[in-house]
């Protein structure tokens, strides 16, 4: 895993790393648009479908932003999926039991409290992960594997083992239409710009995280820790503390992701989250994140989420049966990363052969 490109290719990395996944995305869009135009319903390349895709991508991208930070810091978070649905469940319970209909006076306070509660649970989950990892110095994989099932269990206890349905009237309109992708422009934040609110949120958060990573000491410290924890320690970075913060901050994104999840399905089911963690991690890795730490890109992660969802939407539009969809998704993931690698001189033996031939 620690193979690096040969030195003479490295110089190019920094520039291309950011564009690699984007090119893969463009390629995939072009491919599906063409196929759909030829053989499908021709609706793939429509603004409505774009809305549907970016909305589902946002649901993955928001928690993936936190995951990107964790992965850059050399960690991993398998609990992201169940932590997300735990937060969603808590929000659902709060809305079911402690809010009043959204059109009554004073409802805003309760709503704010309910959302804050969900977010708080997300931060708490992250904090627990971070504290255990930094205090016990155990590998993040096993810690978060443990907390993954713990969060699932806690969610199920809270939800009394079933799905929590809040009263529909208790949800404010902005929340109900956070993931709206239909044609009624009133439901969008900017009626002249029919982009799902969830996608706008993801974009804003993405910019914030990118700024954080590039322009703050905290951001640089994260890269340093993931790149070489020993060095970081010798340079006086408080590795444990920073790690804890990274996980806690990732918890914020889990909480926000839960908000979108809740707005999307409008109920909370704690076991919905199992398996989501792999999708989230996949978005990060497709976007150029390295599981050995130190490398990862925010733009890349968002593009990674888009790639995953574009493929799945494209297959539906082409009416490809589910089974084949699985195969196609797998093949495209591999090809996308392969192409990204090629452009970075990745199968070295190939480039060596080309160079000498």
């Amino acid at each position, binding site marked *: 895993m620690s193979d690096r490109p040969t030195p003479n290719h490295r110089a190019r990395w920094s520039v291309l790393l950011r564009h690699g996944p984007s090119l893969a995305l463009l390629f995939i869009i072009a491919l599906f648009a063409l196929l759909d135009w030829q053989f499908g319903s021709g609706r793939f390349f429509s603004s409505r479908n774009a809305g549907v895709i970016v909305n589902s991508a946002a649901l993955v991208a928001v928690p993936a932003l936190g995951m990107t930070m964790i992965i850059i810091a050399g960690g991993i978070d398998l609990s992201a999926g169940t932590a997300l649905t735990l937060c969603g469940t808590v929000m659902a319970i709060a809305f079911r039991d402690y809010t009043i209909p959204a059109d009554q006076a004073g409802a805003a306070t309760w709503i704010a409290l309910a959302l804050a509660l969900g977010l708080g649970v997300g931060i708490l989950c992250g904090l627990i992960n971070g504290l255990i990892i930094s205090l016990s110095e155990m590998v993040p994989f096993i810690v978060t594997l443990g907390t993954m099932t713990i969060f699932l269990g806690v969610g199920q206890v809270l939800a009394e083992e079933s799905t929590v349905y809040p009263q529909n009237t208790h949800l404010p309109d902005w929340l109900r239409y956070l993931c709206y992708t239909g044609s009624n422009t009133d439901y969008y934040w900017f009626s002249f710009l029919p982009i799902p609110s969830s996608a706008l949120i993801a974009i804003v958060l993405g910019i914030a995280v990118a700024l954080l990573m590039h322009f703050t000491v905290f951001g640089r410290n994260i890269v340093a820790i993931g790149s070489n924890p020993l060095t970081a320690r*010798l340079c006086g970075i408080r590795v444990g503390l920073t790690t804890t913060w990274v996980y806690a901050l990732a918890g914020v994104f889990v909480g926000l992701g839960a908000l979108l999840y809740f707005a999307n399905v409008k109920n909370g089911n704690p076991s919905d989250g199992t398996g989501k963690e792999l999708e989230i991690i996949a978005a990060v890795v497709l976007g150029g994140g390295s599981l050995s730490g130190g490398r990862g890109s925010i733009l890349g992660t968002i593009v990674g989420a888009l790639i995953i969802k574009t493929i799945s939407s494209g297959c539906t539009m082409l009416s490809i049966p589910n089974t084949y969809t699985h195969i196609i998704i797998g093949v495209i993931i591999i090809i996308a990363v392969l192409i990204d690698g090629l452009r970075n001189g990745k199968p070295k033996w190939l480039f060596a052969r080309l160079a000498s031939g």
Partner: protein
Amino acid sequence: MNALLEVSRISKRFGPTIALDNVSMTAQAGRVLALIGENGAGKSTLLKTLSGAHRPDHGTMSIDGQSYRPAGPIDARSRGVAIVYQELTLAPDLSIEDNIMLGRSGTVAGTLLRSRQRQRVQKAMDQVGLSSISPKARTGDQSVATQQLIEVARALVSDAKIILFDEPTSSLPAADVDRLFQIVDTLRSRGLAIIYISHFLEEVRRIADDYAVLRDGHSVGAGQLSQISDDQIISLMVGRDVDDLFPAVPHEIGSARLDIDRLTAAPVPHNVSLSLRRGEIFGVAGLVGAGRTELLRCLFAMQPTRSGTVRLDGRPLPQRINARRRAGLGLLSEDRKTEGLAQNLSITENLSMGNHQRYSTLGCLNLNARSEDAKRWIEKVEIKAQHPNQCVAELSGGNQQKVALARLLAQDAEIYLLDEPTKGIDVGTKAEIYRIMGQLAAQGKTVVFVSSYLPELLAVCDRVGVMSRGRMTEVRVTKDWNEEELMLAALAATEDE
């Protein structure tokens, strides 16, 4: 004279190993203290204790008469102690600038003030001669030498009173060594105290005022350099007299074995042609980036070549590492930390890596034979370790280098490609390595010896070639060279462009 730093009766043990045993030492403002000792004597451990990376088990330290007990690296830095570590401690994924400023908050509310810090960074980089490299470049992409200079720059940006250098020159070529010495001189004249570890006595003489010698974790002597001779220092270090620093083993040069014809790769080397003979030690000198490392790596097929051929005994060699290895080539990597050794494996494991055919039948290992063999090598190259199953990361820098070398010797190659084999090795062991090289030549093997330390090239090699900008510009029989001419030759081609 005022003692700026006082260390008294410091002890530090790692499990059963006593790395420091009641060590005392003083360093004065405006003077350079050379810390000398064999590999594993405890030098690095002492500096790490000073820099707050280790905590001493016993003993006290003081700066300016005030007690000094650093709780960690930040604490040490805030007390004015900066360090350049022996092993590279850079985050490869960060830019040079960020590495230099790592852990140092030049910030407003956590936001980096890049423009403000850039001036400081640029100044430090200029000082160490990295002005031509962009501070935004990724650190992992730089050569080992450049990375070493980045480490020095990192120590310079801090406003330290005491700067600790742990073998900073071991991966630097001569020109950069000179620049480093100028830097040290300036720092000294500004009244800083400097502690400097080096295995090169002439370097020590050039730069240091005082010395302190460690042997097996004890202080065995200290004083002013002007009052002690090299031989005395060496016998303090080794505990016995070393009669010959450059032992010569008579060997006979035979017919041509390895023919290199216009070897070219991107970006270096360029059109290198050479004919290496049986029983010959061939030295390669050059500045950083001259392409010496790349040349060796091309010969070992670790790097693609663009054109040119390499023949052994007239037969062209295939472009695969293990094919070349089987044909009889062996490479000692310059970068022992990330490439040369598997740090988390034991000495035995590292020694046997790739050499399993010696103690296996049909792919099954004879573990006894393997550990016997490991013990033999540990004795032969005098690796200082508790036991053969000790993890390599626990060894001192020089002893790690010996493990890498021993593995290559165990491989029993025909052509030895040694990239800075004596890097970080103490005087006594260096002599041993030269002797081994001589013996190899006497057995009719060929040795290619890349080094930035000119005296050893001149003393050990039969011929020395100079590389510059990827070209082998000049090859002469050793007796036709002297140090100045070698330096000039290395610089020459650089200047006419």
